[in-house]
């Protein structure tokens, strides 16, 4: 999956076409995105300032912007938790994925393609099944807890599931391929000769990595961290399956407001706040990392 396009060095190939043709190509897809992405977001914005008119499921527009503040104060714990868990999960995934991508790109020889398939392969087992599998592997009846208890690494009271630990590792596990593939793609594009040149210019292995490999792979790292962080911050499946009532994330609150409490304005306000927070973070992060060639 190529998340980063090549830097467009071949601009001369672009046709400077004054005709309507490119717009015809764009029209159906962009219309779809307008109707089913932009318009829903506008509806969400509109819903977020409504108030309940007394009856369940009936709301009227009162432009109550305080909905944003109220909902945020109510869910501030889950908000903080979402961003904390997503950050931790992203860091864990990065720590696992970078060496993995590096090994596939530079150390795997003819096995490269097979290993790449293996990175994507777990995707084909439903991610829900895999998350539930973790719950059972780490659960009370599972082998891991039994072994750790026998070895006295954890006390008999400690459980591995229904914990913040399980939620964070679950998130890191779920989005690991999303982290690995972009990093691999940017590493694979590095000309091995630049690494040799660095060695030739008296850089040792670690310096070569720090001064040449890492900067050249930054676009992949940026794309990978975004593709992990964004879905992780909005996720509620892992918190539901692997967590406990004290590990609820913002996604859980939004889902509950929608389906259990039928409080659409609060759910909409929270969704909107989450989206805005993520977009601000992402913009800041891309600027900081200096990779404008994303997307």
């Amino acid at each position, binding site marked *: 999956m190529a998340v980063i396009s090549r830097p467009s060095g071949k601009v001369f190939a672009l046709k400077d076409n004054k005709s309507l043709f490119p717009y015809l190509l764009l029209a159906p897809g962009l219309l779809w995105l307008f109707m089913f992405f932009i318009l829903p977001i506008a509806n969400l914005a509109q819903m977020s300032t409504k108030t309940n008119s007394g009856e369940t499921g009936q709301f009227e527009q009162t432009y109550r912007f305080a909905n944003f503040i109220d909902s945020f104060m109510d869910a501030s714990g889950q908000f903080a938790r979402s961003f904390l868990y997503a950050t931790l999960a992203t860091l864990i995934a990065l720590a696992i994925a970078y060496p993995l991508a590096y090994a596939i790109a530079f150390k795997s020889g003819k096995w490269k393609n097979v290993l790449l398939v293996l990175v994507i392969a777990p995707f084909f087992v439903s991610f*829900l099944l895999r998350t539930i599998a973790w719950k059972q592997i780490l659960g009370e009846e599972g082998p891991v807890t039994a072994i750790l208890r026998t070895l006295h690494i954890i006390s008999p009271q400690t459980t591995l599931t229904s914990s913040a630990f399980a939620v964070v590792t679950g998130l890191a596990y779920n989005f690991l391929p999303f982290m690995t593939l972009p990093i691999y793609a940017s590493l694979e594009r590095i000309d091995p000769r630049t690494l040799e040149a660095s060695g030739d210019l008296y850089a040792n292995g670690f310096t070569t990595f720090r001064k040449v490999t890492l900067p050249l792979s930054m676009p992949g790292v940026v794309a990978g961290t975004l593709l992990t962080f964004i879905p992780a911050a909005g*996720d509620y499946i892992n918190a539901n399956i692997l967590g406990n009532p004290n590990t609820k994330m913002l996604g859980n609150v939004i889902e509950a407001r929608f389906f259990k409490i039928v409080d659409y304005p609060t759910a909409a306000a929270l969704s909107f706040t989450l989206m805005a927070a993520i977009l601000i973070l992402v913009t800041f992060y891309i600027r900081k990392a200096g990779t404008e060639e994303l997307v």
Partner: protein
Amino acid sequence: MKRLTRWFSKNLIRIYAGLAFIYLFIPVLYTFIYSFNDSGKTNLIWKGFTFEKWSNPCGAPDICSALGNSFLIGFTSTFVSTVLGTLIAFALGRYKFRGRSTTNLLIFLPMATPEIVLGASLLTMFINFGFNTSLLTAIIAHVMFCISFVVVTVKARIASLDPRLEQAAMDLYANEWQTFRRVTFPLVLPGVAAAALLAFSLSFDDFIITNFTAGTVNTFPKFVYVAAGRGIPAQANVIGSAMFIIAVTVVILGQVLGNKRKSKVS
């Protein structure tokens, strides 16, 4: 001892990668093993080996109708999003036009928006317009979130094309349409296929957006999620494992055939 540490430090990164793969595959292996569990309604504890679930994957109530819906949504939205996304990718990859950067932003935004926000906003709109959520609304939603991934994948392929190939075709008496049909499109096709595969796997495995937009229509992920509360039947493991085996076989077979063709003569 010294040699051992030397070997160890030299292969450290390979060992690390090996451990990462084990980590990736533990739940897959677990799912596969428990597909043979001679279990009742729940599939929590090993009760003995049986092929029974494999010979009767639809044995659990509703599971196969849910799977059928997943395939229906998956295929339809893959087809639509691949067509729409490929058109956009060609416009972005081949033409200069006003509104280019706005288009790029509009493609990027859905990828930078958490699924729960996408799902919540769509559901809000459907409620506002009094539109009943169904199979159709689910497909609409899936097409929407797949388009961006298709655009990005196909655009990368177009960007890597040598523009001289198209110029050569024009030089050899192919008009614009023939150039596209005979040269550009065949060369971009592998990128389109990769994009379609990506779109299908994203759609097939999606739970959050589906949960918001499919109404009462059941899909395989929804089935698993609901069943998780009371215990998942082993048939779900059978279907997950079968999907895994089919997909990996297809991908590896494709690669082997591709390699064979490449090395046939040289």
